[in-house]
C-alpha cells in the first residue's frame, strides 16, 4: 500500500517539520538567568507525529483513489444527502418532527451546563443565518458583523439600566437599531467591492467597539454593565435554572422563526435579487434590479438578526463589556457560514453547532483547545472547501424524451 517512494517522501517531510519547528519547539531560553534549555525530545515527537499524520493522509488518499468508482449516475446525485432527504415532504416532516421532539426534551435529559452551551450554540445558529443573508446570499463579505450584535446588546443593557425597560420591549428596539446601523454602514460602502468592502466592515466593527470602550459616560467603558435583567416569564422572577430553561425555549422558538423567515426570503423576489447580485452585478443591474436598495436590504436584514441576538446575549449573560465584541467574534461567525456551506440554511445550522460546541467539548484537551480548534478549521476547509453542506442551486434540466 505504501511504496518505498511515499515512505521516503514521508521521512523527508518529517525532517522538514523538525527543522521548521526547531527553534520554537526545541530551544527555550531564559534571557535573564541566561539559561538555554534544549528540549530534544520535542524534535523527536514532531518528527514522528508528522510522519504518522503523513501516513494517515496518504492512506486516505489511497482509499479515495482506489475505491470502486462511485456510481456516476447523474449530477443530481451530487446534491448532498441531507438536501435530498428533506426534498421529500414526508421525510421532511418526519425529520423536523423528530428534531423538534429531541429539542423539546433536551434540557430534561442533560445538565444545566449542556443546556446553557446549547443556548449559546442556538444563538450562533441565528447569527450565522443572519450573516448568511449578507455573505451567503448577497455575496457581500462582512468582517464586522459583530458590531450589530454589540448594538443590540448595548441597546438592551442601557435601556434596561436607565429606563428599566424589559426584555420583550427592547427586543424589537434592539433589532431595529441594529438594522438602522446596518443601513448606516451600507450607504458608504455601496460602491466598494470584494475585499475593500471586507476591510471597511472590519473597520466599522472596530470603531463601534472602540467607541463603547472609550465613551465611558455612555457605555460605562471597559468595566461593562452588570445586573442586566433576565427575561421574566409572565411577570414572574425565575430561578437561575428556570431562566436558563426559559431562555432555551425562547431560543428554540427564535431559531424556528428565523429558519422560516430566511427560507421564505430565499425564495422571494428579494432573495433572488440577492443571488443575482452575488453572481453578477452588472447582469443584475441590466435586469432592472435596483442594486443599492438590494444591497441595503441585505445589510439591514442581516444586522436585524444580529441585533435581536445581541439583546438575547445581554439577557443571557446579564453582564456585557466591549471585550465580547472583538474581531475574532466576527471571524467565528463568518467561519460558521463558510464552513457550513455558504447560502445553505442546513449548512449554517450544522456549522454553528459544530463550531460553537466544538471548543466547549474540546475543553477536555484544556490548553490544547484553541490549537485544535485552529487546526480543525484548516483541515475542514482543505477537505471540504465548499463547506459541509453545499447549497442547492435551482436548476432546470432539459430532459430528452
Amino acid at each position, binding site marked *: 500500500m505504501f511504496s518505498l517512494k511515499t515512505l521516503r517522501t514521508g521521512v523527508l517531510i518529517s525532517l522538514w517539520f523538525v527543522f521548521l519547528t526547531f527553534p520554537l519547539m526545541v530551544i527555550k531560553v531564559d534571557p535573564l538567568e541566561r539559561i538555554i534549555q534544549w528540549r530534544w525530545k520535542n524534535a523527536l515527537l514532531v518528527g514522528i507525529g508528522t510522519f504518522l499524520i503523513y501516513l494517515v493522509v496518504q492512506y486516505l488518499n489511497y482509499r479515495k483513489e482506489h475505491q470502486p468508482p462511485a456510481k456516476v449516475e447523474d449530477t443530481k446525485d451530487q446534491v448532498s444527502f441531507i438536501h435530498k432527504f428533506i426534498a421529500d415532504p414526508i421525510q421532511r416532516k418526519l425529520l423536523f418532527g423528530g428534531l423538534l421532539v429531541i429539542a423539546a426534551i433536551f434540557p430534561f435529559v442533560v445538565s444545566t451546563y449542556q443546556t446553557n452551551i446549547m443556548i449559546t450554540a442556538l444563538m450562533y445558529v441565528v447569527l450565522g443565518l443572519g450573516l448568511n443573508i449578507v455573505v451567503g446570499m448577497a455575496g457581500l463579505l462582512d468582517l464586522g458583523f459583530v458590531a450589530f450584535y454589540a448594538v443590540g446588546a448595548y441597546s438592551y443593557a442601557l435601556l434596561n439600566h436607565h429606563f428599566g425597560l424589559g426584555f420583550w420591549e427592547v427586543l424589537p428596539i434592539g433589532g431595529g437599531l441594529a438594522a438602522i446601523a446596518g443601513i448606516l454602514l451600507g450607504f458608504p460602502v455601496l460602491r466598494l467591492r470584494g475585499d475593500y468592502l471586507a476591510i471597511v466592515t472590519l473597520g466599522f466593527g472596530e470603531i463601534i467597539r472602540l467607541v463603547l470602550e472609550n465613551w465611558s459616560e455612555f457605555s460605562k467603558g471597559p468595566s461593562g454593565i452588570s445586573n442586566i435583567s433576565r427575561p421574566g416569564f409572565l411577570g414572574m422572577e425565575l430561578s437561575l435554572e428556570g431562566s436558563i430553561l426559559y431562555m432555551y425555549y425562547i431560543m428554540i422558538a427564535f431559531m424556528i422563526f428565523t429558519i422560516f423567515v430566511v427560507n421564505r426570503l430565499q425564495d422571494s423576489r428579494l432573495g433572488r435579487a440577492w443571488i443575482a447580485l452575488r453572481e453578477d452585478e452588472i447582469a443584475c443591474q441590466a435586469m432592472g434590479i435596483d442594486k443599492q436598495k438590494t444591497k441595503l436590504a441585505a445589510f439591514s436584514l442581516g444586522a436585524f438578526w444580529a441585533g435581536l441576538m445581541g439583546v438575547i446575549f445581554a439577557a443571557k449573560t446579564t453582564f456585557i463589556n466591549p471585550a465580547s465584541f472583538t474581531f475574532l467574534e466576527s471571524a467565528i461567525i463568518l467561519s460558521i457560514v463558510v464552513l457550513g456551506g455558504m447560502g445553505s440554511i442546513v449548512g449554517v445550522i450544522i456549522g454553528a453547532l459544530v463550531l460553537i460546541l466544538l471548543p466547549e467539548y474540546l475543553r477536555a484537551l484544556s490548553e490544547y483547545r484553541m490549537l485544535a480548534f485552529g487546526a480543525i478549521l484548516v483541515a475542514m*476547509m482543505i477537505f471540504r472547501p465548499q463547506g459541509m453542506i453545499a447549497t442547492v442551486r435551482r436548476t432546470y434540466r432539459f430532459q430528452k424524451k
Partner: protein
Amino acid sequence: MDYFIELFCSGLSRGAIYALIALGYTMVYGIIGLINFAHGEIYMIGAFTSFIVATVLSILGFPLLAIVALSGVAAAVWASAYGYTIEKIAYKPLRHAPRLSPLISAIGMSIFLQNYVLLAQTSDFLPFPELIPDFEFMEPIAHIVGSSDIVIFITTAVVMAVLTYVIKFTRIGKAMRATAQDRTMAMLVGINVNNIISATFIIGSALAAIGGLLIASHIGQINFYIGFLAGIKAFTAAVLGGIGSIPGAVLGSFILGLTESFATGYVSSDYEDVFAFSLLVLILLFKPSGLLGKAETQKV
C-alpha cells in the same frame, strides 16, 4: 512646532513598521487574491525566532554585530520556511475552492500558530535583547528620533529599493507580475506558477521577519499575541494604499502611521484607532480601490 516635528517623526517610524508587514500582505494578495490573515503570525514567529537565536548567541558570547546578523538571517529563514509551508498546507489545496474558503483557512492557521507558540514557548512577555544600540551621534536629537527609528527607516528604504528592483527587473519579478495579472496566461507562457506563488510567500515572510526583529528590538518585548494587532493594522494600511500595489502599501502605511500619531498628539489616543479606520472609510469612499490601486474596469 517642535511638537509637530516630534509627532511627525513618531508617525514616520510607525508607518515604516507597518510598511514592512504590509508589503507581505499586498504581495500575497496581488498574486493569489487572498487576505493572508496568518501573515501577522509570521511576523510574530520571525520576532520569536530572532529572540531565541539572539539570546542563545549572546549567552554563548558572540559579539553584537554577529548576533544582529545571525538572528536576522535566522528569523528570515525560518519565517520564510513557515510562510512556504503554510501556503503548501493551508492555501494551495484551496486554489480552486470558493473565494472565502482560503480566508477561513487563514483565520484557522492564525489561531493555530498563536497557540502553537503559546504552548511551545510561553504566555509571558519576554524581554527582547536590545539589538540596536544607541548611537553616539544621535544623542543631540534623541528626544525626537531615536536610533532604532533611524534603523527602521533605513531598513524599510533599503528593503523597498531591493524589492522594487527585484519586481521590476529580475526574471522572477517579471514572472510574479505576469502571474498576478493573469495566472492562466502566465502558465501558458511557461511560468511555473506554483513556484512563483511559493517565492512570493517566501519573500513576504522574510520581510515580515525583518519587521519583527526591528519592531521587537524597538519596543523591547514580545509575546505570542503581538502578531494580531500588527497584522490588522498592516492589512488596513495595505488596503488604504490599494491592495496588490507595492508602492501603495508603503504609502498607505505612512499615511496610517502619521494619522495615528497626529490623532494621538492633537486629539486623544483613546480614539487613535477610530481615526485610523475612519480615514480608511473616507479614502475608500472617494477612491474605492485605495490610493494607488488599479480601478477595475469590468468588461462584460
